[in-house]
């Protein structure tokens, strides 16, 4: 039984990713914090330029403060850029480790991911989801930078006049309290809207995917209409979102400006009373201007953290998927026949067994049990199959089905043997046209999923790959269903010859294999009905009908 999934929580994932680069993150934090503090001190210096320089008519003080502003500007830009680079690199490294961990997990989980992780998810995980999740790291840096700007700003404004400090803190809190919940609502609406965009995109993809059907049979008008209707509905939904979100955006944009006005007003009154200087008033106004950007950044950081959490949750789920086949057996060195209890199918050692059946599915399931891609009580010799080390089972028993995958790699890598053996396997599987079609070059590339080959070519290349591996036991399910009769007959002959000493099972309804069978198993409704030599079984009229295509002809 598969062990309970290891708990990889989104939080653990994120902290783990960041924690591995803590030195980088720490150094980046220092850079960002210093950059933020420097940026805010420059605004304070503006007041100094006005008070000590202009109003005091002191040319030297004026030049000094301008010079300091210019120098700190260089330092600030440099520090910020350093911090950005350190956090950005940590982010990129985290993405790399997500791709690696997903790669390792896929290897560990093996067939366990079937039915639990969809193809679409696997496309999104290393791209969209991992990008979102690791953004949390870079965003932490920005958050620190903004916090440093905010704190330094508050302290400096406070030194100008405590009342201004109070206004700034109160104003920021008010902005956060008002804009925060509004933003939450906006996000809700936008996520509904985003979901609809997703549906519409899927509709468009559907139209492209089924273009041949839509053009060839019809329905293009129907689908175009349906798409238009949904697109218009999305537009109307967008209009509806536009109403509240325009209020929220305007509020978000205007509240800080209002806040600048409040600071200016308060500052002006303080200045008129002589409590602060003119330069102090100009500084305070500049501070308020920069706080506009800072408060906006706080809010967008919150958005990114929410998105990061969603991405991390998806990744964590997949990283917790376990194998569906337990590897707890330790026995090795199995001898004897393989036996499937459910169907009654036995595999005779050193013989070519042909399983004849009208229903392929249950026969395939029997083979999957015998090759341990499904847990069962199948036995190998004297012991249950599950008692053997999985590595031994995988090495000695090979299953070949139409669902086998062709990876994007060269023909040489696909066949995984030296050139002579590869060409021999290609010859045995009658796949010479695959080889010549790709320019008679073993280094020619097979596209992902064998997309640059026809269905029949893919099937024969898979067979060639299985033959090249020379497994002790080969269980082949309909290995020639997409091949014409001439070629099928040749393949049957060649496979029988190449695997003369080995153990082979071929599930097929084609009589062309029967001529080469050492032994025939006749399966009905997923159970062994009869077995023996082809010539003996022919005595049964039902068998004869099935085995000579009379049933379907």
């Amino acid at each position: 039984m598969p062990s309970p999934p290891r708990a990889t929580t989104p939080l653990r994932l994120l902290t783990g990713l960041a924690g591995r680069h803590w030195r980088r993150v720490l150094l980046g934090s220092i850079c960002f914090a210093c950059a933020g503090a420097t940026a805010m001190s420059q605004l304070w210096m503006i007041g100094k330029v006005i008070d000590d320089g202009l109003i005091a008519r002191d040319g030297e003080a004026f030049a000094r403060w301008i010079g300091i502003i210019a120098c700190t500007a260089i330092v600030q830009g440099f520090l910020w850029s350093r911090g950005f680079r350190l956090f950005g690199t940590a982010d990129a490294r985290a993405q790399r480790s997500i791709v690696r961990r997903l790669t390792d997990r896929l290897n560990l989980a093996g067939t366990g991911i079937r039915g639990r992780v969809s193809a679409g998810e696997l496309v999104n995980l290393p791209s969209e989801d991992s990008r979102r999740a690791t953004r949390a790291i870079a965003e932490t840096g920005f958050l620190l930078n903004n916090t440093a700007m905010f704190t330094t700003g508050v302290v400096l404004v406070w030194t100008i006049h405590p009342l201004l400090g109070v206004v700034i803190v109160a104003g920021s809190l008010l902005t956060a309290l008002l804009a925060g919940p509004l933003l939450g609502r906006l996000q809700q609406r936008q996520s509904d809207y985003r979901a609809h965009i997703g549906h519409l995109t899927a509709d468009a993809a559907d139209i492209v995917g089924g273009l041949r059907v839509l053009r060839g049979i019809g329905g293009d008008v129907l689908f175009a209409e349906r798409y238009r209707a949904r697109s218009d509905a999305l537009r109307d939904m967008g209009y509806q979102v536009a109403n509240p979100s325009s209020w929220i955006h305007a509020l978000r944009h205007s509240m800080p400006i209002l806040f600048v006005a409040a600071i200016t007003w308060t500052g002006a009154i303080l200045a008129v009373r002589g409590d602060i200087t003119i330069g102090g008033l100009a500084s305070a106004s500049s501070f308020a201007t920069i706080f506009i950007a800072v408060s906006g950044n706080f809010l967008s950081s919150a958005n990114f953290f929410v998105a990061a959490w969603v991405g991390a949750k998806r990744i964590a789920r997949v990283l917790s998927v376990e194998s569906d086949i337990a590897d707890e057996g330790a026995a090795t060195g199995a001898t004897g026949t393989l036996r499937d209890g459910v169907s009654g199918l036995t595999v005779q050692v050193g013989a070519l067994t042909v399983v004849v059946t009208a229903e392929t599915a249950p026969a395939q399931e029997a083979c999957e049990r015998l090759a341990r891609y499904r847990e069962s009580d199948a036995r190998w010799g004297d012991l249950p199959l599950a008692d053997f080390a999985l590595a031994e089972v995988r090495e000695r028993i090979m299953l070949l089905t139409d669902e086998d995958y062709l990876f994007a790699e060269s023909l040489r890598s696909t066949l995984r043997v030296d050139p002579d053996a590869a060409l021999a396997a290609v010859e045995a599987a009658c796949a010479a046209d695959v080889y010549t079609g790709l320019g008679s070059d073993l280094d020619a590339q097979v596209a992902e999923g064998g997309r640059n080959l026809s269905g029949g070519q893919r099937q024969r290349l898979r067979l060639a790959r299985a033959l090249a591996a020379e497994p002790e036991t080969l269980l082949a399910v309909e290995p020639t269903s997409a091949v014409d009769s001439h070629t099928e007959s040749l393949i049957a002959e060649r496979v029988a010859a190449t695997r003369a000493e080995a153990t082979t099972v071929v599930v097929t309804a084609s009589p062309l294999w029967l001529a080469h069978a050492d032994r025939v198993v006749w399966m009905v409704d997923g159970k062994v009905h009869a077995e023996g030599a082809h010539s003996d079984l022919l005595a049964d009229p039902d068998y004869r009908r099935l085995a000579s295509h009379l049933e379907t002809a």
Partner: protein
Amino acid sequence: MSTVVPKPRKAFEDGPADEAQERLPIAGPAEVRRAFVRILADDRGRAVQVLVLYLLAAVFSTALPVLLGQVVDGIGAGWSVARINAVCSVLVGCVAVQFVLSRLGRRAGYRFGERAAAQLRERVVVRVLRLPLDRVERAGRGDLGTRTAADVNTVADLLRDHGPIVATSLIEVVVLYAAMFVIDPLLGLAALVTLVPLMLAARRYLRRASGAFVEQRAALSEAAETLSASGAGSQTVAALALQRRRRDLGYRRGEQVFGTFARVVVLQSEFFMVLLWLNRIQVALVLLVSGLWYFEGGLTVGAAAAAATIAVRISNPTNAVMTHLGEFQQGAAALARIEGVGLVESAPREAVPSGSDLRLDAVTFGYGDGPDVLHGLSLHPRPGERLVVVGPSGAGKSTIARLLAGIDRPRSGAATLGGVAVGDIGVEELRRRVVLVTQEHYVFTATLRDNLVLAAPEAGDATLLEALRRVDAGWALEAGLDVMLGDEHRRLSTAEAQQIALARVVVADPDVVILDEATAGIDPASAGRVETALAAALAGRTVIAIAHQLQAAASADRIAVVEAGRIAEEGSHAELLAAGGVYAGLWHAWRGE
């Protein structure tokens, strides 16, 4: 026994490969500009409205620094608190007006973007549906898919979100510079100085970043492809012990992702550093010039203070524009690909056939620049007959089907329906008469009903249920017509998908049906049943069935044996058996005799 004839580009037989053969065109910069202008012009009124509102909002928001200057000078001139309060009330009033204007502008902007995005995506889909099929298949469906999905969304995001942000920011920048000039033209000029290096830095960044962004996307999609292949091939990985190889490949993809992201980070950090420098150097410059000018007596303290605040403020919208430059660049690239779809030329198909007599006369054909696949082949299915075309893989059977269905045109000779070239007949007219069903059977993410009614939207439930019965789709009858199909809802097996494809044809009820290995994925036992049922359903129609196996042959009216792009034999089952030729050999082999 004959051997299989290798064919160089076999991939075309059951739908060309997904690999890029001949990408769809991409629109040039002039066309992209025209497209942008058209998007604006299509909703001219609202575009102008949006711009005016944004402009007014920006003007009112600059009241802040301007009035600040007044207040500073007023304090120097000994204003009373009451006077200050009055001016500051005006300030707050301006902010309130700015708030209302910016809300109205935002709303109009959203609506503009929303409408433009809807129009764009609807136009793309209409164009896609009009594309010549052979052209789409030559380009690969992935290319078209990216354009209709990802590219459309990129442009839509630009129109809805990034566009308004950049528009408001740009307008704000312009108004702030204008305000600087209003305070004092000399200060305006001082502020403009940093604009030159800013432009240069932005141009340099865009040039270098665009390539880096492309590589970044490519690295992400390669990582996605590798991982989804590992997932799709999990059983193969286990069977062939490929874990090590998948690990190496996955790690390599991770390394690529890291490399491209790190490169983008470096480029961005350099650009942003220059951006921050220029922000503050601009402030310092404005302070310097205003100070010198003040010492010369050309400026009041209030004006200097106002100018400093404006200079500080310019950085916010400037940086907003700069950080969105990339999105504009990507949006333009996406729009170029979208507009490219409209550049595909399609020959007009207007011929009207008289009757449904379909024939191939001495046709030769080859794919692309490849060698001939068919060599002067003639085939004439008689109306109402059931013709079975058999032959070894690679003989050119599917090519015959594609020529008969008008997807490809012969190099020489003629493929005609009712006396006119099949490839010249309008799509709607053609599909009423000829329908091709291939091994590739697409199931739409829609209800079972919508999946069936394609050809006959007005067909009643009874017709649809009857069609399902004819193709022996018991599961579908059980599930009902309202069941949602598609991978997310109900994933169909190959056999079930094939039954849907066949039921569609029964509903469409054309004069001629071409079945290219249409029952290849069904169990041998069910295939026989489906073929028989289909034969009954299509009684009276011309049926051309292409097969590499012989299930359907014996019951056919006539059999044509194709070998190496030529008709080797033609005749009824009995005639061909008696002739003892190729077909007889095939038949005996197939029967295991």
